[in-house]
């Protein structure tokens, strides 16, 4: 899962990035709204986290511009607890808001909810044939048995499972693993997919030559 974080406060941004990465997210962090808006046109994200108190543009303005360009789920962080501020944020296109200071678990839960809602799911347990993924606990089970996965393996599997039977390109999966602007080892995706196939089932993840990978939702 790749998250776009727009947070002007260095200390808070650093904390959120660290926490999300520990949870298996890849985080692209921008301090200014306009940089984030230009990034959204060129990269693929699962969710946007926006702090409404940005220095270069009014947070609401950033929110509206983001909404014009993207249908991604947007979670806003705000220190303004007045009713009109909260309603204004939701009306401007945010999917949910979290009041500062927030509980980390609540932030993670709300992120899962907005992403799930964007995919049209109601439950936090993703089930495809014999595969089931509990997003809250980061637990994966195959044919009823729990499987231990590394952070990057989990991120890859979740992304594939979220778009079952659809081919996800290799660059997209690479971006997911390392985030924006970082170096990617050329065979990293292949290595992690190989590990996943070994731990689960060889035919679960199908290699589409020259393009990328897809997850077979019928695999048992």
């Amino acid at each position: 899962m790749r998250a776009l974080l727009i947070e002007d406060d260095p200390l808070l941004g650093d904390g959120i990035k660290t926490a999300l990465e520990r949870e298996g997210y890849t985080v692209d962090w921008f301090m200014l709204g306009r940089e984030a808006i230009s990034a959204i046109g060129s990269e693929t994200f699962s969710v946007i986290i926006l702090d409404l108190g940005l220095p270069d543009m009014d947070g609401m303005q950033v929110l509206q511009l983001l909404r014009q360009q993207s249908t991604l789920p947007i979670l806003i962080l705000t220190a303004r607890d007045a009713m009109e501020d909260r309603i204004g944020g939701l009306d401007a296109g945010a999917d949910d808001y979290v009041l500062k200071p927030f509980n980390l678990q609540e932030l993670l839960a709300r992120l899962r909810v907005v992403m799930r809602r964007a995919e049209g799911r109601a439950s936090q347990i993703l089930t495809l044939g014999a595969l089931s993924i509990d997003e809250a606990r980061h637990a994966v089970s195959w044919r009823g048995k729990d499987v231990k996965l590394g952070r990057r393996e989990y991120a890859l599997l979740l992304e594939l499972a979220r778009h079952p039977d659809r081919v996800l390109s290799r660059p997209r999966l690479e971006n997911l693993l390392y985030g924006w602007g970082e170096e990617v080892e050329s065979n990293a995706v292949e290595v992690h997919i190989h590990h996943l196939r070994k731990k689960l089932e060889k035919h679960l993840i199908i290699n589409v030559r020259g393009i990328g990978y897809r997850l077979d939702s019928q695999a048992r």
Partner: protein
Amino acid sequence: MISIRRYLLRTLAIALVLAGGVAFTAAYLITDHELEEILDTQLSLHSRIVAGQLDPNATIDDYARLASHLGLPEYPAQLYRDGIAVPVNSPESSPKLYHEEELKLVLGFWNSDGSPRLLGGKWNDAGPFPAPLEEGFRWESYDGHRWRVFSMFDITTDTWISMGLRGSFHDEVVERITWNNLLPMLFLLPLLLWLMSRIIRRGIVPIQALSSQVQGRSARDLSEIDNPVPQELNGLRQSLNDFIARLKETLERERRFTADAAHELRTPLAALRIHLDNAQAGGEQSLQKAYIGVERLQRVVEQLLILARLDQVATTSSATIDLYPIIAELVAELWPLAEERDQHLRLTGLTRLEVRADEIEVGILFRNLLDNALRYTSEGGQVEVELALWEGLPQLTVRDTGPGLPEALLDKVTERFRRASGQGTTGSGLGLSIVSELVQRQQAILTLTNREPSGLEVSVRWERVYACAS
């Protein structure tokens, strides 16, 4: 304050009654005077006619005949010879018909020596009426009544002639005329008062309308008062609207301040919390970052408290102080901060500079300025503090080689929670706001200018200068 309606009604009613009273008194006095003149004219005219009719050779019999004509039943005229009353025998010619009022008008004749000759009926009741001593009008008291008397001396007949009118006749006429004037006024007065109260009530309706419009507002309604008012209330409405506008502005500023304060307090708190969460999950550097969060929070809270205290205390107790030791002390205190970031911090200029200000406030002011300069200047940069006299005025200047400020922000950074954007540094956004507050309290002037090629120069110039003691 009593109500305008009651005040108007009361004072107008009093004025009306007073005016009525004055009019009544004036009418009484004028009638009294005019009537006296008319009656006097008649007295003198009739006296002259009588004098003209007198025969110089008239005998006592002629007077007896005149007496019988002048006499009224029960009040016969009296004829005198050598001061002694002589009975008049022929009353058959005396009138049977006469008007009651005739009793109040009497004619009398005296000899030149003052002895009575012939006196009308009423002037004999208590002895002969007093003889005239000189010609003209006079008031005379006789038999318990006042008489208005005209006297003249006729040389041809060697006779004093007096004609008198009883005072009560004159008084009655005056009273009757005055009452006739007063009565309609007495009937009109209540009607006038009632009309007045109606008019006043109608006249102050716009005041009540305006006040009920203001009264009926909710505390959050800060829209303009726009219903039409009469000219006299235009000014009041205008000032009310101006006041509402000012209130709106103040509330808006307060609202923004609260929102900004919430942001500045909650953001480091959120950062602190998430770093603690991270530390608990095993992040090694997170605990250290949490400390940074605590420090930031502490700084915001302290500055908020300073501002709150400054807002509370209206005036500063200012004495003449020397800036140099205070500034030098603070520069020394912040030296390690500069050293840590390899910044070059210098104190230049005068070593004695007296200003009229509060020592503690100057300390807070300068600490904020220097703190800002160090904070926004990159590692290895330069910060210079200078004490100088600028056109005879004491001036404190802090120059840095930081990024400076966008021109558009130069006037605005002194607003609370204003911070230049895109800075990696985290300030509370309150520092310059505190500085500007303190500068205002000391009646000094704060100037912010960008330096070439980059950097910011902040100077504080004290306007009130006092002669140096040394």
